[in-house]
């Protein structure tokens, strides 16, 4: 137990306190974004094998219909986000940076866009395996950004036992308010989703962790919690990266997930709130994931806010609808600390896209990199106790092997705190990402 805990505020050591910039969107109720004239659905939207397309060029698809089927255990199906006609399946830019196969659907202009209903399910009557299969059928992946297939996370590894489900409602990234809105607007679905997750992993209790900058969420959820105390909600300190799995678990329970291990190693399963709320909404009706809440925010926007966006909506349409009137900007998919920059306006929103952030930082951008003065700020920021200072100097010398073998490079989850605090403007986490890729390539080359 750290000293901080003695003062009663649930938190973890280190980390940073960036400016939140959430006020632009957090108070606005979620609205529906209209259907773009053309929808681009990448086949590969998550970790694991991409699904196999089962539609062909020129085919009519109904909104909610399965258009690609899962290919293996780590794969999930895709559902059509709009009613329309398949224009083609071709390579298009995706949020991951590279061009990938995408199903392009021309939206049918006059369609009512009512999603087709699947077969209704009685959750109480279903076995654990049936439930996990039903989760897989929704095409659900982690909506918090990591995009790990949810059914796979709900499958407890052999030999492990899970006693507690941790529900991650921290949303520690600046600018983002999607989870905030979901927790306010979708409480019943969230509670149902938590019950489904508890049943899947055979846990007896669940804890919702919410950053203490969202007191309205605590007030909204508390009346809906079951009386037997199996689901509880706790406020944790507002601090980045509180929403990282390891940090949240430590804040709530004082436990450390082993380095290189899984939450299941210490009897836990961690899910994002939006993921569970969406499961609670879709699963009873046998529907698939076709839209998600996205925070559209940043500079030069007339209508920032949280929108229910069909999967596959291109950025061009989103910027147009939100009234972007700037000339130049960075388009960030996800939060400003860990999101990725889109290189093309044709890039679509995918299942893992929690925010579209438009930043024009030309005025303050500073590309001057000064030498490391060994101030140690990065060591005081790194939530997992790495030595980014030493790692950065090793990266500059291209000693990527030493970084991995002696300085725990692979434990870095790229939260970006080190780069954020560096007074010399050294792109530390950027170096570490490159180092990891080069190490992986080297291993592949060496067989």
């Amino acid at each position: 137990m750290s000293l901080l805990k003695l003062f009663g505020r649930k938190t973890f050591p280190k980390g940073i306190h960036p400016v939140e910039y959430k006020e632009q969107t957090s108070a606005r109720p979620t609205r529906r974004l209209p259907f773009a004239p053309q929808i681009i659905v990448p086949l590969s939207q998550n970790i694991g094998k991409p699904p196999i397309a089962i539609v062909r060029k020129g085919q009519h698809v109904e909104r909610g219909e399965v258009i690609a089927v899962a290919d293996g255990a780590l794969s999930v199906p895709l559902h059509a986000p709009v009613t329309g006609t398949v224009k083609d399946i071709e390579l298009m830019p995706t949020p991951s940076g590279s061009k990938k196969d995408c199903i392009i659907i021309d939206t049918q202009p006059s369609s009512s866009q009512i999603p087709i209903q699947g077969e209704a399910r009685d959750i109480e009557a279903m076995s654990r395996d049936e439930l996990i299969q039903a989760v897989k059928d929704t095409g659900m992946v982690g909506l918090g950004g990591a995009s790990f297939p949810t059914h796979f996370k709900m499958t407890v590894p052999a030999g492990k036992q899970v006693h507690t489900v941790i529900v991650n409602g921290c949303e520690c990234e600046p600018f983002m308010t999607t989870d905030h809105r979901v927790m306010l607007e979708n409480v019943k679905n969230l509670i149902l989703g938590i019950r489904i997750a508890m049943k899947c992993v055979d846990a007896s209790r669940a804890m919702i962790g919410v950053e203490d900058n969202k007191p309205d969420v605590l007030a909204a959820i508390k009346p809906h919690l079951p009386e037997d105390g199996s689901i509880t909600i706790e406020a944790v300190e507002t601090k980045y990266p509180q929403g990282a799995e390891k940090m949240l678990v430590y804040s709530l329970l004082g436990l450390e997930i082993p380095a290189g291990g899984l939450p299941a190693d210490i009897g836990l399963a961690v899910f994002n709130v939006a993921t569970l709320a969406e499961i609670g909404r879709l699963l009873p009706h046998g529907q698939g994931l076709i839209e998600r809440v996205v925070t559209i925010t940043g500079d030069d926007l007339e209508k920032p806010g949280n929108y229910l966006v069909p999967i596959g909506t291109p950025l061009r349409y989103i910027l147009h609808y939100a009234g972007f009137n700037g000339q130049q900007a960075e388009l960030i998919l996800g939060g400003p600390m860990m999101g990725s920059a889109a290189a093309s306006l044709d890039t679509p929103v995918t299942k893992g896209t929690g925010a579209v952030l438009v930043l024009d930082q030309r005025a303050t951008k500073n590309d001057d990199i000064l030498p490391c003065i060994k101030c140690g700020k990065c060591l005081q920021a790194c939530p997992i106790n790495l030595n980014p200072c030493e790692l950065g100097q090793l990266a500059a010398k291209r000693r990527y092997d030493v970084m991995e073998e002696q300085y725990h490079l692979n434990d870095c989850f790229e939260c970006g705190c080190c780069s954020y605090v560096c007074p010399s403007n050294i792109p530390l986490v950027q170096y570490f990402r490159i180092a990891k890729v080069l190490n992986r390539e080297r291993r592949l080359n060496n067989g």
Partner: protein
Amino acid sequence: MAEKSPKIDIRTSPYIRRAPTVTEIMRHVVYALLPVCAYSIYQFGISALASMITTTLACVATEHFFCRMADKRSTVGDWSAVITGLLLALTLPPGFPLWMGAVGGFVSIALGKALFGGLGFNVFNPALVGRAFVQAAFPVAITTWTPAFAVNRFSEFIPSTLAVPFMTPAPTAEWTLKTAVDGFTGATPLALMKFQGVMTDAQDLFLGTVAGSAGEPSSLLIVLCGLYLAYKKMLDWRITAAVIFGTAISAEFFYLLDPAKYPSPAFMVFSGGLMFAAVFMTTDMVSSPVTPWGIFIVGVLVGFLTVVIRLFGALTEAVMYAILFGNAATPIIESFTQPRIFGARKGKD
């Protein structure tokens, strides 16, 4: 959508950062040094002022010169050379000949910093490299102390200040007799302790009414300036605390052995520039450790060595060598004090 597409900038995350830059940090260190300088000038008069100006100019000019030689953009603007100059001046006797101060400034930057590759690459605190050099080169001048609060300190220089290069500085003994307030012996509290067995009262040390280097006399002011920097998060107070802790326990050990022979911990902590060194010298970011245990070990080591050198060495002003030794030991101490990774299993890293 017929409208013109906006231009897209591409970078990798994080896209936001908010941290004081190196230049801002260095500038605030200069701010924190200014009250110490001002008090020093108040104590020692225009000689101290002239000494500060000389060493600072020498450092800045040397930095600029080496950047030009290396075809690099001049790094004078990052304020680090100014800090080195001020730190150097504050560790010298107030009446130190100006030309020797200029030599010290040049050596600080040339041997202490430029030789290693400039800011961020130096192993030792540059100001102390310069100080060590002048200590070896000008042993008499660097141990010639003049009294604080001399009556005419604002109207005339201490005679040695204006010494012609390579000539023996004018003796100060007569000037000291003429100007000293009362009974000034020309010895620092440490020299009094070491050679005459006389203890100076800790309160005099704390408030700065004794002889010594330009920057060492008032511990109180130094602590206040350090607190400002620590509040701004531009000074690692852990190092300062570790040095003071190391000094105090080492002194306490000897004091318990023989209180008649060895000075008290309070005397050790507040005398001879230890406080100045603990606040401004050991906390030099570049030459100090970054790992939590490394900070503690090096800090305590510096404190311990200071006490040992003071008590058993031939020199009185021991902090400088203690810090240089601590700087030298920093890389190896860091190598075995790497932090424990979050979630690391016991017996396996």
